[in-house]
């Protein structure tokens, strides 16, 4: 007979109460796991959406982020190929980079002569064979918005750009609505933009390949994706290739800081007039939303913790009151105060261990059920449905953290009653 077997037997002497306490621990643990799994998904989803919108990193001509959005052409880089080669050939950066591609931002007016409609647009000139790798970047295998049946009609059914279709452009779903053109109509549109030389506007005709979305309404109402050659012809007619941003996709997001530092070093070594911004700098709302979710999680964690502490406290106090005379008798046999504290903490460990394990199993089963029930919702700022995914299994920290959190909280809840039991006057306890 060991102190642990005594603790185990003491826990089960009141089966109903101990079961209720374990269920409380299990539900707390499962709740933390499920919420943790959702937060984890939200972080991954935000990372993916950030990269889809802006890549991991964009390199600009110095001053572009401060002033360039009003006149992107004035801050375009004419040495895209040189920068791309430099980045890919670098022994530090090369192995970490998945893709280097160029983008030429164009702001202007888009007109449908046929419908007699027009709107401002925010255009992106991209390399047709490379843009798909950016917009469908999904290294974590999350359910993509376009895979959800409720969203399928919103997304492009073929590549947004095609090198064999140099006049074909893809426009945002919202913009198409404003211009009253449909995605599969091959409607002819006129794009007008200012050129840097002399400020005279230039105009080009384009054909709508399809409509597409970037999932955020404010973007989709102005989005025009066009081949970079078309964008270059629009802004820099007759000139060599320009880009406003060199976009980088990394193999691993955690390399971002190293890559940024190395680009700074290269810029100094080669006297390049460039600056860079991470996708997270360019899309700060994602980070803010995540911070809010993290705060919700912390707040929920505190509430769960407090409730659990009081549950365990109550269970232990009831047990101690029932066993007061027994505690007195044990003290007469030579059990020290520390021994009494240890005994009740061991019982709490048993409760926490079994409750926590039950919580992990419950959490995993609940997560599986939720993940397979296709629960859809529209996240803030988005205009597409997202699938509720709880990624409890994707990070051991979620399971381990939830288990140990509920376990630790159970220990904290037991400590005060245990200490109270140890401080009882023996004579008083025996008279109970």
């Amino acid at each position, binding site marked *: *007979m060991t102190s642990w077997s*005594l603790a185990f*037997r*003491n826990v089960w*002497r009141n089966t109903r109460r101990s079961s209720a306490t374990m269920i409380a621990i299990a539900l707390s643990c499962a709740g933390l796991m499920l919420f943790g799994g959702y937060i984890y998904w939200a972080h991954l989803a935000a990372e993916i959406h950030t990269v889809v919108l802006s890549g991991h990193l964009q390199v600009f001509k110095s001053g572009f982020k401060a002033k360039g959005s009003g006149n992107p052409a004035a801050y375009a880089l004419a040495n895209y190929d040189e920068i791309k080669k430099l980045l890919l050939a670098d022994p530090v950066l090369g192995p970490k980079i998945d893709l280097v591609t160029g983008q030429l931002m164009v702001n202007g007016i888009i007109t449908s002569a046929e419908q007699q409609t027009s709107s401002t647009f925010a255009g992106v000139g991209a390399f047709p064979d490379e843009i798909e790798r950016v917009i469908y970047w999904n290294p974590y295998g999350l359910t993509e918005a376009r895979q959800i049946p409720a969203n399928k009609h919103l997304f492009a059914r073929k590549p947004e750009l095609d090198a064999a279709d140099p006049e074909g452009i893809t426009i945002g779903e919202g913009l198409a609505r404003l211009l009253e053109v449909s995605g599969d109509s091959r409607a002819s549109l006129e794009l007008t933009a200012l050129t840097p030389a002399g400020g005279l506007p230039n105009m080009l005709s384009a054909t709508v390949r399809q409509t597409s979305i970037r999932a955020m309404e404010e973007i989709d109402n102005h989005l025009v994706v066009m081949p970079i050659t078309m964008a270059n012809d629009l802004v820099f007619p007759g000139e060599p290739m320009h880009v406003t941003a060199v976009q980088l996709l990394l193999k691993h997001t955690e390399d971002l800081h190293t890559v940024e530092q190395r680009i700074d070093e290269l810029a100094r070594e080669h006297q390049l007039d460039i600056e860079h911004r991470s996708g997270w700098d360019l899309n700060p709302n994602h980070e803010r939303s995540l911070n809010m979710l993290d705060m919700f999680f912390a707040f929920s964690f505190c509430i769960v913790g407090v409730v659990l502490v009081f549950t365990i406290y109550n269970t232990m106090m009831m047990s101690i009151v029932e066993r007061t*005379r*027994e505690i*007195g*008798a*044990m*003290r*007469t*046999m*030579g*059990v*020290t*105060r*520390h*021994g009494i504290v240890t005994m009740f903490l061991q019982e709490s460990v048993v409760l926490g261990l079994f409750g926590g394990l039950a919580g992990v199993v419950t959490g995993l089963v609940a997560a599986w059920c939720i993940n397979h029930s296709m629960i859809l919702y529209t996240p803030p700022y988005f205009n597409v449905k997202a699938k509720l995914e709880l990624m409890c299994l994707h990070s051991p920290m979620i399971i381990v953290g939830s288990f140990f959190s509920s376990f630790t909280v159970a220990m904290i809840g037991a400590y005060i009653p245990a200490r109270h039991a140890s401080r009882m*006057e*023996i*004579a008083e306890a*025996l008279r109970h």
Partner: protein
Amino acid sequence: MPDTTTQPLVRVIAAKKDYPLGHRIVQALRGVTLDIASHSFVVMQGPSGSGKTTLLNLIGGIDQPTAGSVFVAGQDTSKLGDSELSRFRAQRLGFVFQNFNLIPVLSAAENIEYPLRLNKVPAPEARARALAMLASMGLSEEAHQRPAELSGGQCQRVAVGRALVTRPDLVIADEPTANLDSATGAKIIELMREMRDRLGTTFLISTHDPQVAALAERMLMMRDGLLCDA
């Protein structure tokens, strides 16, 4: 510190014990002086509230006197800290209670084994000694039964075995027969006498039971917090 070779096993010197009761102080003991020799079988009688249990608590080191001193086996128990006092109780004292106070989740053998394990006796030896103690009390067949499955007499025999298994110098029994019928109570007292004879343990028993008092080698009478001549 008194010399244990010449001093009695228990020496109580002018012990007083006051309890607060609401706004007033109750004097449970009002200056008790007492010696108990080793290997004796002492019975203490007195009406309820006379201070019997309080005196037993002071001798057993589970309460401290308001004034005066209590020496057990030469040790002034009021000078010991909680851990030392716990160790002292574990090694030198045994207790038998009116309500048995067995640990309900342990079997009879485990209840007897428990104080041995507290004294760091290895598990196999503790189990063997517990079973031997049960056998000496005629409870071998009940070794694996829990207290709820035993009769009151059997429970008290287990409690006596638990008190004796560590070979203490002194066993303190507070009303050990109060919850037993007279025949069973007599058997328990006989068992205690037998154990005293066999193991040389000193017994200090408080009781209202005249049957127990009749078996006393030495009788103490308590009245109003004072020890009277028996």
